[in-house]
C-alpha cells in the first residue's frame, strides 16, 4: 500500500480535483466523442499513474463490449482484435452487474479472462473497472490497469475513477444524442428534398382548352406519399388524364410513382386505348415487382371536341360525374385489380359522354380518409353530398372540396396525400 503524509495526501486531493475540473471542461468543449473519450482516458491514465487504460461501449446489436479507447503498449492490438460478451471476463461482468470492481491482483479473480494477456504478452496485475451508467442504464465500462510505480490501486483511486467515468458516461450520452439529432435533421432535409422532387413530377399547370376546363390539386401528407396525377396531350383532339396512388409511403413510393408515371406516358402514345395501356403497364410493373409494391390507377382518355370519355380503372376509386342536371353518379365502377401484382391481367374499359356542364371528379383515398382531431373520417358520404350541392365549374368545385376537407380536418396533420382532379365540358 502507498504510504502518504498528510501534506502529500492533501496535494494529491487537490491534484485530483483539478483533474476532475479539467475533464469536465474537456467534455463540455466538444461533441466529437472519439476525441473526448481519448482525452478522458489519457488523463485518467496519467492522473492515476496507470500503465494502461481502456474504455469499451456496449454494442446493442450484438450485446458485446467493443473497445473505443485502449491506451498502453498493447492498446492497438486489443482494439483491433478483441470483443467481450456481457458477463465474460472482468469487463463483461462489470458491464452486466453494474458494480465497480477494484482488484489488487486480477489473476485471483475467477472471472479474469487471460486470453488478452496471453495474446499480447501483457501481464495484468492491479486494475479498476467501472461501469459507465446513465441512470440505471449501463452503456459500457472503463478500466485502468497496473500502477506504474508497481503499487496497487486503492479506494481513493477507485473514487476518483468512478467520478471520471461518470463524466465520460455523460459525454457519451450527449455526443450520441447530438449525433442522432443530426441524423434526424438530415433525414428531414432528405425528405423535404424528396418531396420537391416528387412534386416536380406532377404537372405544373392544368391544360387550357376552349372546349374543356381542367383543375387539379395535390396536398402532400406529412411524409412523402405516392399519389400522382398527370395530363397527357395525346394529339390535338385527345387528352389523357391520370390519377393514381402507390402503396406505402416515403421515398420508395415516390420512386415507384416516378417510374410508373413515365412508363404510362410512353404507353399512352404507343397503345391503342386505355385498357391496353394499363395491361402493358401492369405486366411491366409486375415483372419487376419489389416488396409487393403496387398502384391503383385510373386512366381516362378524353376526346375534347365530342366529350367522349374512355376510362380504364385499375383498382382505383371510381370517379364521380356531376351531370348538368345536378345528379351525381359513379364511372368505371367495374374496374380491374391494381397494377403491379400479377402479370398478364386484363383490364376493361368503359365509355361515357361528357355533355356541356358535366364535371368529372377523380380523387384519391386521402380525401375521403382525411381525419380530424377526434379521429373521425371525412368520409365518402360527405364528399358525395358536397359534389352534389357545389357549383359544377371544375375550378370552383375543386376549391370547394379542398376547403371543406380543410375545414373538417382543421390543423390535424394528415397521413395520406390528397389528390383531386376535376374536369368538365364547357362547350
Amino acid at each position, binding site marked *: 500500500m502507498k504510504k502518504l503524509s498528510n501534506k502529500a495526501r492533501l496535494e494529491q486531493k487537490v491534484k485530483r480535483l483539478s483533474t476532475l475540473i479539467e475533464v469536465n471542461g474537456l467534455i463540455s468543449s466538444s461533441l466529437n466523442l472519439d476525441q473526448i473519450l481519448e482525452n478522458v482516458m489519457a488523463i485518467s491514465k496519467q492522473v492515476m499513474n496507470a500503465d494502461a487504460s481502456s474504455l469499451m461501449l456496449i454494442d446493442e446489436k450484438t450485446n458485446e463490449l467493443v473497445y473505443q479507447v485502449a491506451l498502453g503498449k498493447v492498446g492497438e492490438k486489443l482494439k483491433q482484435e478483441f470483443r467481450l460478451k456481457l458477463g465474460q471476463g472482468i469487463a463483461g461482468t462489470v458491464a452486466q452487474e453494474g458494480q465497480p470492481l477494484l482488484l489488487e491482483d486480477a489473476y485471483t479473480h475467477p472471472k479474469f479472462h487471460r486470453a488478452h494477456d496471453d495474446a499480447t504478452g501483457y501481464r495484468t496485475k492491479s486494475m479498476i473497472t467501472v461501469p459507465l451508467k446513465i441512470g440505471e442504464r449501463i452503456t459500457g465500462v472503463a478500466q485502468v490497469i497496473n500502477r506504474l510505480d508497481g503499487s496497487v490501486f486503492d479506494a481513493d483511486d477507485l473514487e476518483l475513477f468512478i467520478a471520471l467515468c461518470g463524466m465520460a458516461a455523460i459525454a457519451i450520452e450527449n455526443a450520441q444524442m447530438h449525433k442522432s439529432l443530426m441524423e434526424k435533421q438530415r433525414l428531414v432535409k432528405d425528405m423535404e428534398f424528396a418531396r420537391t422532387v416528387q412534386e416536380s413530377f406532377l404537372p405544373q399547370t392544368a391544360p387550357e382548352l376552349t372546349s374543356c376546363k381542367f383543375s387539379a390539386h395535390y396536398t402532400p401528407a406529412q411524409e412523402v406519399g405516392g399519389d400522382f396525377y398527370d395530363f397527357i396531350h395525346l394529339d390535338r383532339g385527345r387528352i389523357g388524364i391520370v390519377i393514381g*396512388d*402507390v*402503396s*406505402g*409511403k416515403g421515398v420508395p413510393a415516390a420512386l415507384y410513382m416516378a417510374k410508373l408515371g413515365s412508363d404510362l406516358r410512353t404507353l399512352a402514345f404507343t397503345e391503342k386505348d386505355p385498357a391496353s395501356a394499363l395491361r402493358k403497364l401492369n405486366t411491366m410493373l409486375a415483372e419487376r*415487382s419489389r*416488396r*409487393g*409494391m*403496387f398502384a*391503383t390507377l385510373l386512366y381516362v382518355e378524353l376526346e375534347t371536341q365530342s366529350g367522349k370519355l374512355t376510362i380504364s*380503372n*385499375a*383498382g382505383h*376509386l371510381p370517379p364521380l360525374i356531376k351531370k348538368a342536371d345536378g345528379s351525381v353518379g359513379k364511372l368505371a365502377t367495374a*374496374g*380491374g*385489380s*391494381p397494377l403491379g*401484382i*400479377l402479370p398478364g*391481367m386484363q383490364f376493361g374499359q368503359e365509355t361515357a359522354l361528357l355533355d356541356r356542364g358535366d364535371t368529372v371528379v377523380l380523387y384519391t*383515398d386521402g380525401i375521403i380518409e382525411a381525419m380530424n382531431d377526434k379521429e373521425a373520417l371525412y368520409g365518402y358520404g360527405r364528399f358525395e353530398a358536397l359534389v352534389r350541392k357545389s357549383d359544377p365549374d371544375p375550378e370552383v368545385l375543386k376549391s370547394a372540396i379542398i376547403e371543406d376537407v380543410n375545414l373538417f380536418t382543421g390543423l390535424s396533420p394528415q397521413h395520406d396525400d390528397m389528390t383531386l382532379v376535376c374536369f368538365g365540358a364547357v362547350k
Partner: protein
Amino acid sequence: MKVEITTEKITAGFLLRLKGDVDMNSSSDVRTAMAEIFKQGQSGMKALLIDLSQVRYMDSSGIATLVEGMQNCMKTGARLRLCELSPPVRDVFELARLASVFEIFPTITDASSGL
C-alpha cells in the same frame, strides 16, 4: 395497436394468424414472419394460409406485404390463401378490386382443402 403474429405448422404448410393493425408501421413484422416461414418451408410447402379474422385495419403497405407473400409463394410453387377476412379488410379488398388477385376463403377449413 401493433400487430400480433402467430405461426402454426399445418398439414399443407403454414397458417399465419394476424391480429391488430397491419399498416406502415407493423407490416415489416409480418414480412419478417413470412420470410421465416419461407425459410422453414423451403420447397416442400404447399400453401401458406393467412387468417385475417382479427385484423382491425389494413392499409396499402399491409396489402403490399400480402402481395409480396403471394409473389414469393408463386416462385416456389406454393399457394397463398387468405381466410376469414374481417369486415374492414373485406372493404379494402372490395374497394381496390383485390378479390381477383388473391385466393380468398370464408374459413380456414375451406382454405385447407383441395391442396
